[in-house]
């Protein structure tokens, strides 16, 4: 008898939980809003139920619109309506991204499948694609409008510059100006001193070393802090400190994180707006043979010196080293090879030197004394 009553109660609870959904009150409220704004016919036709935007081509199943019912009513309902009813902000490019084709999550992130607020916005413990909210953007000192541009670049990666994506446009300019491709490979072009960046956004955060990163262990933090001070995040790295401003590093981080594998049908690929021209990158030439300095020549090539310096082929990142043995005494060269930054600090007349080379200081290569000797022997003969 007790069990039967308990049974009844539990089933009743189940029904209660099912029908006490988060979204139903919002939908009923929206009907009221429609009536208040004199859309009687629409209010009458409005039916309460889970709504979704489904586009299998893009893999979009977005139930955000179950609560965010005002998204398409921008021409009728005021922008002052509280969330979740607020109509979508009128943006110049919305026409090119119709809701029924793109849904919400391609631009905003989040868990489209969900019909509950927390699950939809942050996704919970097992969802690594949170909605780009004011709170998430605020963690990295950005506005939502700035951080969303990261997702724009998922598709607009190959544009040279895109309207409405000022942060990403800045990042693309910096990428070209600082010649990142000298050391990194992107889409088949570039150098191999640093890791390939073509699909940097797909890399797993768990494979990164966070021991020198402050704050939350996020890939954004790692990339940002690495860009600001490579030597601190990756001790012993040959990546120079470029002296980026924080906003520049943030923009670059967003661009890097936007480089992901995304497959969508050709009709979704945007026609490139001023396609980024293929940057011409010289593959480092073989260092010239010099009798009696084979060890040094090998080191010159395997330690990456030839990524930044040519011998007889002109300035690259750093100066052409042909004849450098006659321009600087052995001791000077030895000191430079050991610690370039210390040399600049010690010699005031070298202070302006980095300006000739795009503000880049030669990073410390962490050479052993034996290696320095060998390279020195080679350089004195070229």
């Amino acid at each position, binding site marked *: 008898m007790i069990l039967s009553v308990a049974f009844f109660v539990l*089933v009743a609870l189940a029904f209660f939980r*099912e029908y006490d959904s988060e979204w139903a009150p919002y939908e009923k409220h929206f009907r009221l809003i429609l009536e208040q704004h004199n859309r009687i016919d629409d209010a009458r036709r409005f039916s309460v139920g889970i709504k979704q935007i489904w586009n299998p081509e893009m893999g979009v199943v977005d139930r955000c619109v179950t609560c965010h019912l005002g998204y398409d009513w921008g021409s009728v309902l005021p922008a002052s309506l509280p969330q979740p009813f607020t109509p979508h902000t009128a943006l110049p490019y919305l026409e090119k991204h119709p809701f029924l084709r793109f849904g919400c999550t391609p631009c905003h992130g989040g868990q489209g499948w969900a019909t509950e607020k927390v699950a939809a916005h942050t996704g919970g413990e097992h969802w690594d694609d949170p909605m*780009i909210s004011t709170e998430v953007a605020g963690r990295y000192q950005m506005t939502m409008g700035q951080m969303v541009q990261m997702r724009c670049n998922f598709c607009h990666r190959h544009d040279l510059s895109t309207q409405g994506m000022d942060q990403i446009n800045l990042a693309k300019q910096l990428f070209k100006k600082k010649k990142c491709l000298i050391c990194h490979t992107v889409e088949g072009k570039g150098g191999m001193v640093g890791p390939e960046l073509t699909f940097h956004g797909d890399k797993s*955060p*768990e494979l990164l070393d966070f021991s020198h990163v402050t704050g939350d262990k996020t*890939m954004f933090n790692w990339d940002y802090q690495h860009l600001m001070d490579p030597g601190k995040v990756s001790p012993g790295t040959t990546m120079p400190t470029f002296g980026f401003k924080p906003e520049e590093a943030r923009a670059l981080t967003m661009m890097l994180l936007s480089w992901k594998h995304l497959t969508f049908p050709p009709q979704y690929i945007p026609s490139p707006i001023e396609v980024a021209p293929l940057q011409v990158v010289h593959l480092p030439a073989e260092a010239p043979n010099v009798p009696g300095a084979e060890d040094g020549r090998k080191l010159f090539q395997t330690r990456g010196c030839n990524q930044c310096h040519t011998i007889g082929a002109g300035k690259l990142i750093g100066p052409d080293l042909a004849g450098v043995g006659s321009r600087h005494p052995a001791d000077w060269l030895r000191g430079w090879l050991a610690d370039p930054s210390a040399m600049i600090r010690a010699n005031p007349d070298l202070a302006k030197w980095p300006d000739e080379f795009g503000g880049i200081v030669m990073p410390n290569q962490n050479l052993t004394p034996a290696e320095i000797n060998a390279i020195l022997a080679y350089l004195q003969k070229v």
Partner: protein
Amino acid sequence: MRDQFLKLWEKLTWSWAPRSERESGEAIVQNLWLHWFPAKVARRSMSWNYSLYFGVAAASLFLILTVTGLLLMLFYVPATSEAYGDMKDLQFAVSFGWLLRNQHRWAAHGMVLVVYLHMARVFFTGAYRGQRFLNWIIGVILLMATLLLSFTGYLLPWDQLALWAVTVGTNIAREGPVVGDTIRYLLLGGTEIGQNALLRFYVLHVFILPVSVWIMFGYHMWRVRKDGGMAAIEPLKFARKAEPKQPSATKSYSLFGLTRGATVQVLSSTELEEKDLAFSSPDLTRRIVVVFLLVFNVTLLLSLLSNAPLEEAANPALTPNPAKAPWYFLWLQELVASTTIGIGSYRISGGLIGGIIVPGLLLGVLAVWPLFDRSPRSCEGVWFAPERRWQNITFAAITVVIILLIAVGLGIRGPYWRLYWPGQPWPQMPRVL
């Protein structure tokens, strides 16, 4: 009109609520569902204290699993491109989808636990002796089938939890000598866990294994009748001083003509006294319904309180940290992770030792244990008979070790397989944003 309805109702339900001893007897013979019970059953067999009704609970859970499973099949497509999305739909979009899935999962966990408890009860009451040995073997097979059902079902959501739990499991299979690789190839339908594996596990999980379990369950029940009833009656028989009457050579039931014997009613009615017996309908049937209701309520309550987990979509390129097997296999994973032996430069894989040899040995010993039980027959059907003390202690000790290993795997193993005591926070795992 009302009279006609009442008459119909009477016709349909009389056998469930018999009003006389004659009706009780008739109920068993005339009702399909009740025909597998004897007309009369020993009170001791029916007692709550004796069997704790674990077997009935296990069967109830299996019924719940079958029904919820059948309904879930209407929402699930065993394709790697669809499976995860279907799980998300069940979580958010299907009315009562959360209830279906939660109840299915809780009943599954519950069944593994209850089947084990049932086996423990049978062991502690020494109810596997003599002619009941065959039923014991069937029970062991049912235990394995339960674990396999749970394992195959685990893969179906196609999330990280599913993919990697099955990766661990099938890599252990590969360590089996000689045929290990072929078995893994057969199980997965390939060398990787992909669409073929999902489909094979699905067919195993929704048809091959459940049907086998239902058939074996039927046989398991039939054996109880054939063995004269539950072992609880053995002390009653033992206590009787009078000579048992000769059973009359009337009908005999057999399976493919392989077993022989007189009907159970004939046997038990000659060996047990009237005062020890009660009518199956309504006494036993009522208790079974009570147990079913209790079990159903528990699964409902748990479903309301706790949601079945669903992790990120399966990603073969990223191993979650830590990657854990389902709880009932965690003790095996602990063994596997710690039993790799190095003899000189030759290493014997923990997968072989902890994953195949140890559980294989345990299962084998479990299966043949009744043959080596030399305690007197008076121990049958008695809880914790003193003569069987060492056997009971061994069983209990092994159970405790298994529980401890599971507890370690559940609560103490953290990322990188390091140990984190309760209260010690896990290191924050890196995220993207």
